[in-house]
């Protein structure tokens, strides 16, 4: 079971690489424009992902599902419905 903090760190590292390291490899007559574009892309995309991740990190409400949907989830996502539950609903 992967620790909870691994995915966000990985993704942040990826965008940091794109945003900080990649601009040094820009070549050509439009070097400045390319660098600016890469950095802006990294910043905006990372911020967008971050907001989405933070919203779901501590959700305040849960999804409201019908019986049909719960049963489909059980079948497709391996989410078995058990007869008794360990935790109270």
């Amino acid at each position, binding site marked *: 079971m992967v620790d*909870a903090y691994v995915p966000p760190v990985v993704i942040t590292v990826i965008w940091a690489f794109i945003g900080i390291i990649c601009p040094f490899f820009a070549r050509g007559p*439009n070097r400045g424009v390319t660098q600016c574009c890469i950095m802006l892309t990294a910043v*905006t995309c990372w911020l967008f992902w971050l*907001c989405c991740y933070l919203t779901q*990190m501590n959700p305040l409400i849960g*999804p*409201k*599902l019908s019986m049909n949907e719960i049963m489909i989830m059980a079948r497709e996502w391996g989410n078995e419905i058990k007869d008794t539950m360990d935790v109270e609903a």
Partner: protein
Amino acid sequence: MGDMFRSEKMALVQLYVQPEAAYASIAELGEMGCVQFRDLNDQVNAFQRRYVSEVRRCDEMERRVRYIEGQLRKDDIKMPHLSAEQEPAAPNPREIIDLEAQLEKTENELHEMSSNSASLNANFRHMQELKSVLENTEGFFSSQEIMNLDSNRPMESDDPAALQSAAQRGQLSFVAGVIKLERFFSFERMLWRISRGNIFLRRNDISGLCEDDEAGHPVLKTVFVAFFQGEQLKQRIKKVCVGYHAEVYPCPSSAAERADMIKDVNMRIEDLKMVINQSADHRNRVLSTAAKHLARWTIMVKKMKAIYHTLNYFNPDVTGKCLIGEGWVPVRDLPTVQQALARGAKISESSIPAFMNVISTNEQPPTFTRTNKFTSGFQNLIDSYGMASYREVNPALYTCITFPFLFAVMFGDMGHALVLIAFAAFLIIKERQLASIKEEIFTIFFGGRYIILLMGLFSLYTGLIYNDVFSKSINIFGSGWQNQYNTSTVIDHSTPYLTMRPKISNFKTYPVGVDPIWQLADNKIIFLNTFKMKLSIIFGVFHMIFGVCMSVVNFIHYKKYASIILEFVPQVLFLLLLFGYMVFMMFFKWATYNDNSTDQSLSPGCAPSILILFINMMLFGHQEPLDGCKEYMFEGQDMIQTVFVIVAVICIPWMLLGKPLYIKATRPKQLPAPNHAAAPSGGHGHGHGDNEPMSEVYIQQAIHTIEYVLSTISHTASYLRLWALSLAHAQLSEVLWNMVFSNGFGFSDYTGCIAVFIVFGAWSVLTVGILVLIEGLSAFLHTLRLHWVEFMSKFYEGAGYAFAPFSFKQVLEDGGEN
């Protein structure tokens, strides 16, 4: 960042050229396209300029070229299209003479051929009509009696007695001719009237339409023969015929003579046909040869004319030995201009090379930004709002990414993004072939092909994060929510919906994007709303802070360092302390309140509404918290909020009075030299001259302050359109799936196959038409507004004018449009 960070430095240059070398030098400069010439002779009448006669020659040549083109079009001969490499250079004086001679010769030939063919055709028509007269009057002269009655028939002998007796017998004469059928009936009535009924008119319609006559289109004609008695009547009838435009033809009454005549006419018709065909061939040949050269001639004439117009801008100097011209040149292109002038001097074998001299000036130079095919689209978007002032910071550089990104926030759907990418990729891969299409709407889309490509790519990413592919989600990493209800609860029919509680059902956070379970959930919109609203405000505040920070760059460049403290600092403090703090609260709320915490004040039921907190902060109000909850999110929030609001309120008079007081304090020292301080800000849009009265300054600053303060609120709220449009897009997509596509799944087996096929057609047409085209255009427009108003109003002046260099490429393009 050199190219697009700000517009290029321009220099005002003076060019000294020898009159002999002038033409060639300007031709070279036109090919380069980097000088914007100024008209030094604008007080001079157009007819008194130096090169007026040359311009007239060019006009004459253009007229000839147009005439030839018209003839080509009439005969439907195509002109080959020239690519950019094949375009000829402007002709040198020797070539001009040749070109003139060729054009004159071709035009004269074409004129001659036209008039010849007109007369040949008229002749041909006459022959045809004569032939039909001869053929159609068979029936009239069948009997010998009528032959005897024919007074036109020559007498065998000149016997006076025979003549006498012939006159006494009352011979009938006749007139034969052709008249338009529509005129025949009134013709008949007229003849009846003038002959008092003593006329016998027979007619025979010519089958088929006759060739065009003066009317210009084929008409119905009829052959007529009028029998009458007497010489006077004959004259009258002939006059009536002339009046009704009826052609009279000599027609012999005896069959033998007629047969001979018909043979004769037939031969002549054959001859004429041959001549007409040969002249048509000749005309074709002349036109084809002309067509091969015409494109080159057109371009050469256009370039010539442009050169002479530009030469008319030059001023002959006092000694008359050289021409002086003035123009704006980007500083980086100065060597290019030198080389072009050197080439021009070499071509015209002038002894003294042209001379270029940079002069300094206080005038505002034109704004020029060097762009490539990728950045030019974005630069156009910014220029449409207003041309940047000279050397102002250029928002187009950032727009390259922020524009497609904000579009994508509103458009986020991976399926629709793929459609956009496919369309843009098609336009880009087929760039060369598609560049020649001139239809207006297509050129708009074609010009923005890189913009569309980027919009598609970013939409792909935001679609991945929103987890939306044609309104369906994809489950890559496994959902973080698991059902924890037992079987009996799930199967229980009395509860149609079961809500999962985060504490027990949420095991992990979906790493990239929105968890796929939300697409199935009934309360999906409640969850997405809070996410997207906060997202919009966060991006809005960051975008606006970025805009305000851009103004610092402008202040540093224009050396108005005082403005940094007097304008920038209060503006950014106001924005940060109020709306930046709101963004902080959003992040804080995301991080602290959760269902797993033991502290009841941090449970979801106690999570405060950020909007209410913000309003209470501004009004210094309080809200009674629920039991077990706290009013504030963290310790000391009360104190911090009070401090922030007080500092923000202090920023307002700081913005309002800071700059005017500074101007007032620094002004008296500068009165004796009023032009001194205005020099570095020559292009500044507000034009704060030193002789502006203080009341003006105060009022202007008051307007700016009120505008800015109100805009912080209104623009922040305006960014909520990011939420609104993305919600609308997602819902439309879902509606199309549920109401249109799902209908195809109701059938099974083979009928289901066909049903899905048909339904897919309808669904895809609606998807592309409504969701990609209309929603795309709508999101494009909203993003454009966000950039123009919310972002650029924080720092952009836009008081410049565009650099319009003398370039043959531009001249040819403009000529093509006309």
